[in-house]
């Protein structure tokens, strides 16, 4: 297990290198540059800007210069936010995205599994249908529709919560967390329900019941773990998605998280910002998938002893 973990961690390096290379050249292939705007720059000013940011050097020189920087964990200055370095920008956005993402994830996981189990246990009853009906709604109504409705009801009309903005208060977190958690909750509920039903129909559960165990013990001791397996494997990417920040949620609620750096950075051709965020996400996703594998192994003995999965 330890050897396997080490190998996975070392595998991170070539993956990242590949990621950096592809992202670096893709950004440069995109038409236009960071200094293009409708107000065209006189050539001497453009030359000064290119020199300042080393954009006048051959692309390969720039690439290796960048690799050297990244090796020292320096992502360079942002083109767009000129008073800040990319490191500072990520350090600013991360705690916020992390707070919103993790809270939403925990909420979605707890609520989703509970609802899923409840629906599975009352399969094909009114409870099941209404829960799954709600889940379907949660999945299919996009959050850019839910968010404005929630803002209008709870912030503008009722005045209970702020309409947007971020000040680290619980009040400013409620709406974004709920909006972000809603579709994931629904998805987890459906996943849990399906796998729970499957598990409940399997032979070892029948055996457990035949032994005369009370139903609650059957669920808790025997059914829950295997039923959660598909949910766990879904958690990895979902978690990365949530922590890296939802562009839509951040924009609607004016939350200064990481997500909008991606879009803004790409649209502005803010090369260093995009690269910094891409690398950061890359590491995050790899690490999270790795953690999910560990949890998976802990939950599922079949994986634990067979490293070839």
């Amino acid at each position, binding site marked *: 297990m330890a050897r396997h973990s080490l190998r996975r961690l070392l595998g991170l390096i070539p993956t990242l290198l590949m990621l950096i290379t592809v992202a670096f050249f893709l950004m440069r292939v995109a038409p236009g540059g960071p200094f*293009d705007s409708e107000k065209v720059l006189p050539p*001497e*000013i453009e030359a*000064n800007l290119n*020199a300042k940011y080393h954009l006048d050097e051959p692309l390969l020189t720039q690439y290796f210069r960048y690799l050297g920087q990244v090796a020292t964990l320096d992502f360079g200055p942002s083109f767009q936010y000129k008073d800040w370095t990319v490191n500072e920008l990520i350090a600013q956005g991360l705690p916020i995205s992390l707070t919103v993402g993790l809270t939403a994830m925990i909420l979605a996981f707890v609520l989703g599994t509970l609802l899923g189990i409840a629906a599975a246990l009352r399969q094909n009853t009114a409870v099941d249908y209404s829960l799954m009906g709600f889940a379907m709604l949660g999945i299919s109504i996009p959050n850019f529709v839910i968010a404005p409705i929630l803002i209008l009801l709870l912030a*503008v009309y009722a005045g209970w919560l702020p*309409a947007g903005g971020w000040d680290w208060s619980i009040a400013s977190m409620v709406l974004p967390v709920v909006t972000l958690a809603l579709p994931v909750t629904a998805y987890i509920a459906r996943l849990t329900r399906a796998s729970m039903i499957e598990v409940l129909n399997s032979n070892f559960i029948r055996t457990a019941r035949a032994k005369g165990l009370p139903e609650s013990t059957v669920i808790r001791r025997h059914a829950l773990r295997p039923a959660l397996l598909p949910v766990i494997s879904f958690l990895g990417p979902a978690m990365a998605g949530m922590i890296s920040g939802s562009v839509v949620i951040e924009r609607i609620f004016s939350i*200064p998280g990481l997500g909008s750096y991606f879009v803004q950075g790409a649209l502005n051709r803010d090369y260093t910002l995009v690269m910094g965020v891409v690398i950061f996400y890359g590491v995050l996703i790899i690490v999270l998938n790795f953690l999910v594998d560990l949890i998976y192994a802990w939950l599922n003995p079949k994986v634990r002893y067979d490293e070839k999965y």
Partner: protein
Amino acid sequence: MGGRDRHVRPVELILTEDGRPVPSVLAQVQELHRNNGEEPQTLDPHLAEGLPSAHILRDLFEGLTAESPEGRIVPGAAIRWNISRDGKTYTFYLRRDALWSNGDPVTAEDFVYGLRRSASPATASNYAKALLPIANAAEVLSGDLPLDELGVVAMDEYTLQISMRDPTPYFLALLTHPVTYPVHRASVLEHGSAFSRPGNLISNGAYILEDWVLRTRIDLVRNENYWNAENVILEKVSYYPFEDRSTALKQFRAGKLDWTFTVPNNQFKWLRKHYPDELVISPWLGSYYFGFNLQREPFIENPGLRRALALAIDRDLLTEKVAQFGEQPSYTLVPPGIRDYVSPIPEWAEWTQAERNTEAQRLYAEAGYSEDNPLRFEIRYDTGQTNKKMALAVSSLWKQVLGVQATLVTEEFKVFLQNREQKVLTQVFRAGWISDYADAYSFLNLFRTGHGGNDYGYSNSLYDALLNEIAAERIPSRRRRLMFEAERVLLAETPFVPVYTYVTKRMVNPRLKGWQSNVMDHHYSKDMFFLKAVGNETPAVEPEEISAVELEDTVE
């Protein structure tokens, strides 16, 4: 909070003899919450570009000149100035009571340092082109001359002389732009690129930077060392970077904002009905038009065809139904609102749309197109609701009136800009210009042969000669006549289709006064104040502040 009681009507404004509000009408809390549209790119005045930075920097710093609420050029850090007969030497006399926020005096050397830093190749200022009228600025920017060759000299501690390359009648307006602001030399040298952070930033304007929570809020508080601090009423100004227009509107409705950057599209009628006192729409110094690529068929050497397209769109319909916010139909390049300049209006602007359509059809047929042989081309525009709707509307009008088959092509902004500049793919494209200073030359220069913004490929030696004459002319009446003539020449060739002139549209707390709509859309927080709400009879201002109403003589 500035606006919880936003719907409460303000008390009537009463002014003292010198035009200041009497203290008894002022609200207790003088804090402005202003949406700035997005995070400013920087608070380093010399690197600044874009509206969000400029809005904040105008509060933080003061240039040699400043603007009154209605947009007139007024003395700023310079109390008066002389312009030499040939218009090429400006001598500024600085006010002796001006201080930096740390108490250091603001001297001519600070301006010399600031302008040199702005022009330095190492600074790489995006907006340094505003300095180009200054003698040797181009050579300094390109690194061919050292910094001290820039035509800016401190004659003594409080006298600054600027030599010009050309007489530049709009130079006093350029001096309100952040790129010309002074910076505090000692703190720039000490903190380097971090000098614009809270705690480090030393400024000479009416406000100082108190806090900057990245992409959350920027707080400014009154600068006690500002020379006119006793007449600055707003104690605190918070700028927010909310990008989503609907969110900003909701924040405004919830009383969290007093001033929005803009308003959501498509909500004009609703806003006008429910917020008639809050919705403020006013002309802006910008033109929206569609450009022709004159280097690509079918628009090379085809002024009649271009004119047909310009005639065939019903601008009243476009402004009323598509733009929707009180934009004015436009028939020229230069928008109205520039002091001392009126554009030559083409004769067809006076016609009815039916007459224009008839003439358009005649020109269209004359150019060799017909129902069986329709004109086909692409209209390119960058992503954005308004652009798309406008392109769609214009293309359907062209189809309806002339039978033109236009294809719409949406492009991401930077791709669009590149295609426009390369002039290979484009045929008809979305274009426009919002000027940084109120002068017609700023618009006319876009069509100069070889100008970086000339994405039309327009080239006319007569026109270029006129532009050169304008640049060298310093007598206002003759310059005005030259600009009029140049615009007439340009419009006669129809290298673009004027559509409308821009407006600014925003929600403003009706209790906020002291500002006025102006075509530059420049609003200084130092001029603003909150009135008490009707029914709020408690005295607003503490007795010692009442004496602040007296104006100093130095303002004159």
